[in-house]
């Protein structure tokens, strides 16, 4: 039985690249080394609700989706985008960088708003980077060096299951040959999560007080512990002191942070303060951070968007040049203002993850979905275009949560078009339609 080795898992931002996949008769029959999530995705190509055919609604949102040809769906998508005054393109995080590059071109061509899932995820991390920078390292550096690991507002046991064995708590590295025995692990989370259960120290802070806790740590690290009250972020001062002492005692510390930092009160200001804390700590020992990115290539979206347009997200091409002002041009900013009059999304599920007000507006405008699977977004999409699954049915580039690009493999043949092909055809159709109208 042929085994494909060193397969890249396209589930989460860990982008594990050591999977072993058995393929028989163009079917994946076994996935070795993957976590539950990765195996379910890679194996489950046809077990979940795969979109089998292109579909369109001919009579408005309440009519049924009817099967059609790729050509028909792509033409309809192009017509919607060309007719729109304020189109938006969103998502593109569980697909290849090659597809994202095409999505940028389509957005430019149609004067669209252009944004990624970071809008409801790690977007504030980018804003924090703009405020104070991002002191970081590669996951392998952390594996080899880190003797103090802090998971702040994230739960890798469930969200990034192999993170701890491959890169962090349990990983054995050059200067951590005994794995867990050579490391301390801290969890900062309001919940006693499954990750927290194995921690050497758990700081169960009051929800929404992350900024306060970071600020207190900075005060201690900079020698101003005397100004702190007895209780900080719902924690006794002694416990905060304990964490600060652990930070100071470590040779190489790392903070892995998740939504607990980026999407709670304080948002990007908390991220900014984490960077400031790291800057302070580096006066005496090494300390860095890595954001626990969810979608396996959401990091890639930020990279591609930054080099192609200058900005990582929330871009508005309506002026012809790239304009960026998150808070004004982020997906949910414009959706809540009901500005958008056409919507294309790919490799993401806004229907499941957006605030109700945004989804309500999406229900009132023409929507195009490019995806391998049916999901809540399908329910309000007027054009549904099935796509091959990147990293399984086609190859391409993805960026790991630490910014490391890895080439995804194609494991099986498919008759589905890839995201890149679909976008390329929509671009060609848009140009054809605009040419017919005599537009620029």
């Amino acid at each position: 039985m042929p085994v494909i080795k060193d397969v890249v898992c396209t589930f989460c931002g860990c982008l594990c690249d050591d999977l072993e996949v058995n393929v028989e008769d163009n079917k994946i029959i076994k996935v070795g080394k993957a976590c539950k999530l990765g195996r379910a995705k890679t194996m489950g190509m046809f077990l979940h609700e795969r979109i089998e055919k292109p579909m369109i609604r001919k009579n408005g949102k309440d009519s049924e989706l009817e099967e059609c040809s790729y050509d028909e769906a792509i033409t309809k998508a192009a017509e919607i985008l060309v007719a729109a005054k304020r189109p938006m393109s969103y998502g593109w995080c569980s697909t290849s960088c090659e597809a994202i590059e095409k999505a940028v071109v389509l957005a430019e061509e149609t004067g669209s708003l252009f944004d990624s899932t970071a809008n409801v995820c790690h977007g504030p991390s980018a804003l924090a980077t703009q405020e104070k920078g991002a002191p970081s390292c590669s996951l392998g550096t952390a594996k080899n060096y880190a003797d103090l690991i802090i998971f702040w507002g994230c739960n890798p046991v469930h969200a990034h299951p192999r993170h701890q064995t491959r890169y962090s708590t349990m990983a054995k590295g050059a200067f951590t040959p005994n794995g867990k025995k050579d490391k301390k692990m801290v969890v900062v989370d309001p919940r006693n999560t499954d990750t927290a259960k194995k921690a050497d120290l758990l700081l169960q802070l009051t929800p929404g007080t992350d900024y306060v806790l970071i600020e207190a740590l900075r005060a201690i690290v900079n020698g101003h512990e005397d100004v702190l009250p007895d209780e900080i972020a719902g924690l006794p001062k002694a416990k905060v002191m304990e964490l600060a002492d652990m930070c100071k005692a470590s040779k190489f510390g790392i903070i892995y942070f998740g939504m607990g930092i980026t999407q709670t009160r304080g948002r990007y200001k908390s991220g900014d303060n984490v960077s400031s804390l790291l800057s302070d700590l580096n006066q005496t020992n090494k300390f860095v951070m890595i954001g626990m990115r969810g979608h396996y290539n959401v990091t890639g979206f930020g990279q591609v968007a930054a080099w192609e347009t200058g900005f990582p997200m929330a871009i508005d091409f309506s002026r012809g040049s790239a304009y960026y002002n998150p808070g004004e041009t982020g997906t949910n900013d414009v959706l809540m203002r009901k500005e958008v009059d056409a919507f294309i999304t790919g490799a993401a599920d806004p229907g499941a993850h957006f605030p109700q007000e945004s989804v309500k507006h999406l229900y009132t405008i023409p929507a195009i979905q490019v995806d391998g699977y049916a999901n809540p977004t399908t329910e309000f999409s007027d054009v549904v275009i099935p796509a091959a699954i990147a990293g399984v049915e086609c190859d391409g580039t993805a960026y790991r949560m630490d910014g490391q690009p890895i080439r995804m493999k194609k494991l099986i043949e498919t008759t589905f078009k890839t995201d890149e092909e679909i976008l390329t055809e929509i671009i060609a159709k848009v140009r054809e339609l605009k040419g017919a109208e005599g537009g620029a």
Partner: protein
Amino acid sequence: MAEMVIKNGVVYDPKNGVDGERNEICIKDGKIVNNVGAGAKVVDAEGCLVLPGGVDGHTHCAGKINTARVMSPHDMRYSPIPGLSGPEPRTKLLRPQVGYNTPNTHAIGYRYSKLGYTTIAEAAITPMMARHMHEEFESIPILDKLALVLLGSNWQVMQYIQDGDSEMLKSYMAWALLASRGYGVKVVNPGGGSNWTWGKNVSGLDDKVIDFDVTPADILIGLAEANEALNLPHSIHVHCNNLGIPGNITTTLATMKLLEKVKASQDRQVMHLTHMQFHSYTGTSWADFASGSDQIADYINSHDHLTFDMGQMIFGPAMTMTADGPTEYRNARMFDAKWSNYDQELEDAGGIVPLAYSSQHFAHATMWSIGLELALLVKDPWKVMFTTDNPNGGAFVNYPEAQMLLMSDKKRQEVIAGFPDMTMDRISLPNIDRELDWGEMTVMTRSMPAKMLGLDVKGHLGAGADADVAIYDVKPDKVDVSVEHEAVKKALSFAKYTIKGGEVVVRDGDITALPKGKVYWVNAYENGIVQAEKDRLITDLEERFKKYYSMQFSNYMVEDAYVSRPVEMRPEVA
């Protein structure tokens, strides 16, 4: 491809001994040829300046610049040089553009082309991150590119030097270039990148690296000797220890002396020292900090084993990005600036910090002067490459500004007149009245970088060269650059024609075509390393990857898909 002939130009082609002559330049199939047929397309240069396409032998244009972009939304909107900076909408031909120090990829391609530059060398990429760099290379239009690969704090390199295993060092160096599709070897703050992973640095050539029994001097000698043993087209390309620190001239001079004992495998330097301006400081602190350019120039004038580039500073905002991690942390703390850091497993460090240089600060004014002093005090222009270490010293769109500073004493004096008094006893520039002529300027911006890199097809206009040509609206025999520097600067900023590979890509300062550039890389592995040594290396690397890397060995090497127009160069095996 159609033939072309450039007539009535005033041609400077120093490599071929052409110094302002009215020669015709003939082009066929993207190459310079001796003659073309009567049907060739005629480009009438109308008495204007005709030069080989510019070669930027040291620029930060792909890779960590992307993190700098994310840090810099302010830079995207900044436009001090209209036409070469800031936001510009898409056109029927062009993609949208933004930025000044950290422009998007498309703007990098367009704007270098407008300046008449046709080849750029990304100065610092780790092998592991090379895939990312190539993705950006693919997105930068028009220009030919190449990459210098960071090996100065690499575990394999330090291990093999520690073991005294020069064969393995050679094999690894060749393999690393292959794995990254890289062109040459870059050494940044040797050993310091490794120490920085512990938050430490090295303070000079003889410090110990923490985890290996080697010193920065060992690393430099080891890499230089391996580089020459492999007969690579470029020498090692070195960013010395102690960048930006008063008194660092001691380290710089010691580094230059150290390399005297290495013999070049071909007719070029054994070491290129980069952004020398940042490494030529005397004094013991910022209080007595001063220019050491005279000592550096004296040494270089009396030795022939090295070349250097200026790292000229441009006043205004800059974006510093370097594999010199500890320097960036120091910058960030000194200026309370935002700080990004990246420690690349087993390979090197890196940091990014935005800075602004002010003509009203004596330290900056002194640094600005040092870059110019170095270029003017070193007599042989073939030892000097023109750079701003883009965008560390300043954005590349300022090249015409800095070139005019080299060509006009009057312009220099005007700037110096505005400096704070505290600057004046620290610099020698006010007393230097040398003004470069067009031939010397052409050497520093074209011919020398090509020769230094070992790129025979670039930097000149002789038969066989790539047909990369810049024509500027400057009449060399009619203009006094020393006086009319503003008009000349404008002409150099927007080429009358830029011809890339025989195709007109710029006409009167506007982009007219978007051919895809080539990527030059050096394969010294295939023929340069014997099978037994290849086997020995791969066995060792597999072990290293299993234990220490975070990705699989088989997924590491840059795939063909990332280099769509490769030019593979194979050095002759000694």
